[in-house]
């Protein structure tokens, strides 16, 4: 079978890897829908730069993660690190969720605020769920969309203002913010509490707007995850209202009592300007190299390429001098043993030997009778072989007898 050249394999490998990278880029770029709301890098009304700046002023080491939370694997001091994910505009991939969970188990702190449901992938791993549908409560300000909630915790005691919040359900952990008993969730989005007529779960009752998964994390030194049902609380346009900024900062200080690093996960946002293209490209590259599945695919392809190249690789031959002077050749002794056909040749050779020994011509020798030949031969064994072609014992014995034969 014709072997494929190494260069062909390399070309195809690089082409496939290039296509993989391109398709990853396309996937990442197109998976973003909205502009960069709640990005720590966004200074507009919907951005979260004010919160980020305030944390910096308070002495936190504030970073922005542009590529992927998978990089949290390399975080060296997760016990003093807080990842803030505000209003994720895409769902986290499996590898990212794995990295976040790992980060938490290593003592990392997580703060996620969401009202779209994109955060449920992470929240469900902490037995928390973002409930879809806007929450309405009696303590609204100027519009039912803007609702005030009282917060009575050790780290903060005051009021926060939320804009069209969602709600949370949870089976473990502890609520940090709860509604009044008259709050209800508009599950079907029609703006009307129609629980009585349709029984769609819009019955009034206490709803939860913030939950902490590990309330005793400071004592155990374990990780902690806080989920808040409204990311708009952290928006530049909202953070200065009511006690939002104090609540947010206090919550961060509560989660990082010894200070530390705060990482805003901006990989879930889409930058609107030109830098966003670079960001997305880098994210695609990082995604290609950090995503578990892609890692496996890339690694397997690399291994395949190396194995193929190693298979195709022929080490340069070490030239050497090949002297053939001691090569052997045979002509008459190609077959060392006597075969059936050789016996006739042997009989002729023996007759020749007798003839030559007696100095007879071929004609004279041919004219001899069997009795005369027997007299000339003298040896009964040789004579029997000459006359009947038979011999006693092995052919070796016959040969020895012939070799030893001499004329009388």
């Amino acid at each position: 079978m014709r072997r494929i050249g190494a260069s062909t394999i390399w070309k195809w490998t690089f082409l496939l890897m290039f296509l993989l990278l391109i398709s990853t880029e396309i996937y990442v770029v197109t998976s973003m829908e909205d502009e960069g709301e709640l990005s720590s890098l966004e200074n507009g009304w919907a951005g979260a730069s004010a919160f980020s700046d305030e944390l910096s002023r308070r002495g936190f080491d504030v970073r922005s993660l542009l590529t992927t939370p998978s990089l949290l694997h390399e975080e060296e001091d997760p016990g003093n690190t807080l990842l803030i994910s505000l209003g994720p505009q895409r769902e986290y991939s499996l590898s990212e969720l794995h990295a976040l969970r790992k980060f938490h188990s290593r003592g990392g702190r997580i703060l996620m605020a969401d009202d779209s449901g994109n955060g449920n992938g992470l929240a469900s791993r902490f037995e928390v769920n973002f409930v879809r549908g806007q929450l309405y409560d009696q303590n609204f300000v100027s519009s039912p969309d803007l609702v005030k909630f009282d917060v009575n915790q050790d780290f903060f005691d005051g009021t926060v203002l939320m804009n069209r919040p969602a709600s949370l359900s949870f089976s473990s952990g502890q609520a940090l913010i709860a509604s009044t008993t008259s709050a209800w969730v508009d599950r079907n989005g029609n703006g009307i509490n129609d629980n009585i007529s349709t029984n769609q779960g819009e019955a009034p009752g206490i709803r939860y707007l913030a939950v902490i998964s590990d309330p005793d994390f400071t004592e155990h030194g374990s990780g902690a995850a806080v989920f808040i049902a409204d990311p708009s609380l952290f928006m530049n346009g909202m953070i200065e209202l009511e006690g939002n900024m104090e609540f947010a900062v206090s919550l961060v200080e509560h989660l990082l009592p010894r200070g530390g690093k705060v990482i805003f996960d901006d990989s879930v946002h889409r930058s609107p300007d030109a830098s966003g293209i670079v960001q997305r490209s880098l994210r695609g590259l990082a995604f290609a190299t950090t995503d578990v599945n892609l890692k496996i695919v890339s690694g397997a392809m690399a291994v395949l390429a190396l194995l193929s190249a190693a298979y195709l690789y022929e080490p340069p031959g070490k030239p050497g001098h090949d002297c053939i002077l001691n090569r052997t050749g045979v002509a008459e002794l190609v077959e060392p043993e006597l075969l059936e056909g050789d016996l006739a040749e042997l009989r002729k050779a023996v007759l020749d030997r007798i003839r030559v020994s007696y100095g007879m011509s071929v004609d004279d020798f041919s004219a001899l009778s069997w009795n005369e030949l027997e007299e000339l031969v003298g040896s009964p064994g040789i004579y029997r072989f000459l006359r009947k072609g038979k011999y006693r014992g092995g052919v070796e014995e016959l040969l020895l007898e012939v070799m030893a034969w001499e004329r009388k």
Partner: protein
Amino acid sequence: MGKEMKHFTLRAMGYASVSAAAFVTALVLSSELFLAASLMSAALFILSLSLYPRRCEVTREMEKDTVFEGEKVRVSLNVSDQRHLGNLEIFDRVSPMLELAEGSNLASLSPGSRGFDYTINASIRGYHRIGPTFLRRWDPLFLWFKEEEIGNPSQLTVFPRISPGRAGELILKDRKYRPGDMRLKRVGLGKEFHSIRDYTTTDPFNTINWKATARTRKLLVNQFEAESVTDVMFILDSRLVSRVGTIRDNPVERCIRFCASLSNELLNRSNRVGLIIYGSSVNVMKPAAGSGAHDQILHMLTNSTPAGQITLGASITYSLPYLPPNSPIFILSALNEDPTIRDAVKQLIGRGHKVTIVSPSGIEFEKGVYDNKVIPKYVLKRIERDNLLLDLRAVGARVIDWDPSKDVIWAMEEVWK
């Protein structure tokens, strides 16, 4: 300049893989260390590739281009580009019929090296080719190489070994009294000393042996061998079946060495020598004398390649017109696999030639291949060979059965007996 081939090495793949792996790791871990390692690997890779040695010329110098078997020849290879930064791997192709005595024909020249030497042992006669030179140019880190064949091959002519002969007698039927030297083992006017005898009044004074006279106190004179010249023909069997045993030592090579040695002796004594070589064809050299004939015989013997299956009978039939009447003929053959030998020898003897057969025993050489074990087939062939030799002797040929353990000098002495 031969076709140039480019290749990469496993080491190059290793560098590229390490560089790529370090780069990916750098991305994954955001590690400057791995990035630096990646860049270093890539830089080394590229730097090394950029320092390829340039194309260069390799010249070969041979100490001698014509030698006799057993002599050694020193070969020197010189590289024209002595400032190369890469590595050069040079392999000077040497005929497989030549042995390396000292050094190696393969050398790896480090940057700046000028060349190398090696010595060849010319073990067997022939026109042997040395070269062309195989050149492999490497970058300094041995990542990538290019191969090419350069230079022209040289020829080393190796004549068959000539063994010194001993003065002796060829019994000649047809003497020709010309100046020359085919000694007749009888007293005559030659140059070679034969014996001492008492002085007679007809002896010239310059033949008196004064030392012997003084010792014995009576006049003694030297006697010299009579000399004659004649035409001697050699018929050499160069069939493929005669090359049994090893390539280095087999009946054909023995016959060739014998022919070279004996013809040299005969030509030195002003005889005329002719040569017939049969195998794949029949090559005839008419009897000639002098150094020209000697050279011609040596070249014919050197050029002879065992091949073909022309029989002795066919070759004699073809070359009968070239055989001087009544001249002594030496048949040099293993006498194997040829049913025409008996009749051919009879024919020669019938025409008045004195036939001497010098026959290195082929089956003895073949037995050596089987570690000299006596095998049944050997016994059969030995019986047949003995019968043949007896037959040939019976028709009047002189047969010298040459055992492989005996050398050429022994065979020549047998001839002179």
